[in-house]
């Protein structure tokens, strides 16, 4: 290290320059260190999530499968009989689809828009080779359903690659035949209530965790370190135990022939015939999730409570507050940071939960994540899955943003 003595204004300028340069070098150095992980996360995490979210508004598959139809139907205003070119387009596209054996996805996509369209498309594709001009007469003879303007309106809606229909479907709405946005019929509304249920179950789980976790964190924070370190094992062992092991344990405990039911029968609270349904429903989901997420409540609470000085409560007591007042008016407000962090963390984790609800939730205990998985794996409605995922993600990012404002992630006390 060299010592520079400032003697003239010239020198002071050069020192300033040197300082700026060294600062820039250190900034660059820090950036270079962060760069590999940042690039890794950007390309392998942020980019694919963006790609999936794009699927929720962009769906070119139909237009790609039916090029001639899409080109011809653009001319059609949406009412009356479509031009002959559109009929011819459908016929020629169907021939191509049948040859490539790809009529299935098109049939499925149309069927979402209009029930009954699946069999119509499959039937037309099978017989497409036999259709001759004029195509309108030929297709109506094959299936009179082609005379229904609604099927053409559905084709027109699907032919645009950018579409709001997945988001509409995700909130139980749709574009009706006339092109206006309406609610789905009552018996087909599932997603709004599923979102509500997800929020409700997560809220209940968060509340349960707070009620169970607050006293325990308080106890751990106020015991001598020697004892609290031992009791901490009770919190950390479940935390470190495999999620599937804990879920298995709850199945073992709660199922009809399980430990809790057997205990209740043995103690004559229940009889063999009236064994309680404790699992594969909402109760099971709430119980198991509370158990699994409780450490995530206790750890931030504990790390905040550790820093609360006992002198304030003592001062309050000496000024005449009774125990209850001193606790609620003096102690609890000092722990709000921990309460907020713990609740947000548990809630964020609960809203996106998949494994436990899938295994112990049954019909009434499944959450939005399970529906996303269903649409990805079973119904193959990827656009809808993406829209549901986007809504879930937005909600969680908003919560995470709040979390970041309130506190630092270090509060979980992983270090």
């Amino acid at each position, binding site marked *: *290290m060299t010592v520079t003595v400032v003697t003239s204004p010239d020198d002071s300028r050069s020192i300033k320059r040197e300082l700026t340069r060294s600062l820039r070098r*250190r*900034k660059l*150095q*820090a*950036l270079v*260190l*962060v760069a*590999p*992980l*940042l690039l*890794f*996360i950007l390309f*392998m*995490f*942020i980019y*694919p999530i963006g*790609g*999936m979210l794009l699927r929720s508004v962009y769906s070119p598959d139909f237009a790609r499968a039916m090029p001639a139809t899409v080109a011809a139907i653009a001319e059609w205003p949406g009412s009356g009989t479509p031009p002959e070119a559109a009929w011819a387009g459908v016929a020629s596209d169907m021939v191509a689809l049948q040859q490539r054996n790809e009529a299935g996805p098109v049939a499925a996509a149309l069927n979402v828009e209009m029930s009954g369209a699946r069999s119509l498309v499959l039937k037309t594709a099978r017989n497409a080779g036999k259709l001759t001009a004029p195509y309108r007469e030929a297709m109506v003879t094959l299936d009179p359903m082609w005379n229904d303007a609604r099927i053409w309106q559905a084709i027109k809606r699907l032919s645009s690659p950018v579409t709001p229909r997945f988001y509409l479907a995700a909130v139980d709405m749709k574009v009706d035949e006339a092109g206006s946005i309406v609610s789905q019929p009552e018996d087909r509304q599932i997603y709004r209530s599923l979102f509500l249920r997800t929020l409700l179950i997560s809220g209940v789980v968060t509340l349960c965790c707070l009620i169970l*976790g607050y*006293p*325990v964190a308080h*106890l751990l924070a106020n015991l001598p370190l020697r004892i609290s370190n031992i009791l901490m094992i*009770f919190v*950390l*062992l*479940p935390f470190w*135990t*495999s*999620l*599937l*092991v*804990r879920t*298995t*344990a709850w*199945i073992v*405990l709660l199922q009809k*022939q*399980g*430990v809790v039911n*057997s205990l209740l029968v043995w103690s004559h609270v229940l009889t063999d015939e009236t064994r309680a349904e404790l699992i594969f429903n909402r109760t099971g989901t709430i119980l198991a999730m509370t158990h699994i997420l*409780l*450490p995530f409540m206790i750890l931030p609470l504990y790390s905040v409570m550790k820093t609360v000085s006992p002198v304030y409560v003592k001062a309050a007591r000496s000024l005449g507050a009774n125990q209850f007042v001193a606790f609620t008016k003096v102690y609890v407000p000092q722990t709000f940071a921990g309460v907020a962090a713990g609740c947000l963390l548990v809630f964020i984790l609960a809203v*996106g939960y*998949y*494994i436990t609800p899938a*295994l112990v939730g049954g019909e009434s205990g499944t959450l939005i*994540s399970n529906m*996303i998985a269903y649409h*990805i794996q079973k119904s193959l409605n*990827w656009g809808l899955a993406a829209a549901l*995922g986007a809504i*879930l*993600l937005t909600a*969680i*990012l908003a919560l995470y943003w709040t979390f970041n404002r309130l506190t630092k*992630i*270090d509060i979980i006390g*992983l*270090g």
Partner: protein
Amino acid sequence: MALPAYADRWERIWHWVYLTFCTLVFLFLLLPVLVVVPLSFNAEPYFSFTEGMLTLDPAAYSLRWYRDILQNGMADPTQLFSGWSWIGDAWANSQWIHAAKNSIVIAIGATILSTLLGTVAALGLSQSILPGRRLIMALLISPMIVPIIVTSTSLYFLFSEIGLANTYLGLIVAHAILGTPFVVITVTSTLSGFDRSLIRAGQSLGASPLVVFQRVIMPLILPGILSGALFAFGTSFDEVVAVIFLADYDQRTIPRQMWSGLREQISPTILAVATILVAMSILLLTVVELLRRRSERLRGLTS
């Protein structure tokens, strides 16, 4: 937590209610984890304690479900423990051993990748002059916050396109993404308690930057790195959603095998596996705890 001498009767009662409540919560936390242990030695294929187990009849206990871990999938399960050939058979064919091998390979790969990337990034993040530090930190932590189902399905689409679906490399990358936030958090929090004058002391004594890193920085942040690595390992070892979407049978891990066991034919073999995993988590917990104490001692937080 002793009550002060001036506590009145209600305070005493309240104090006991409070302690009882806490005890119950501790039991609620621990008992479900421990209940699988005795049940895994059940001689019957039930998930409940039998009469014999409660009266501690030795005949009611057995190791059959532990044997089943090895036997399930073996070409010739009857040969278990006779001669030596069964070892090769179990190593090659047993479903659970197949899953265990996958779990270990993937977890180690993911741990190495996430620890390397995470530690280097944490060194940069700990410098307050880094531009956009809060935003970068939020981005690097985000895999922990984004719901696993969104992450898994997004990776599923990407990996299908670039040919990483159903490969070990794909799973290692996926688990490394999920593990890096833990490494970043633990190492930055170790570095936040780090006394920067130690670096200057090293430099003024003539050490080159590399020597300062090796001899001064590294030993002090090593506990943080190791506990971050353990978190990353634990995350990968316990992860199942990404495996469901990104792996087929060849890459099946232990949690994936348990998942299908729980969904299809639930047998007490799962309890035996669970017991082994509980034993492993006790081991992991002990190591992390020892590391944490060592780190605190090194940083002078406790005496």
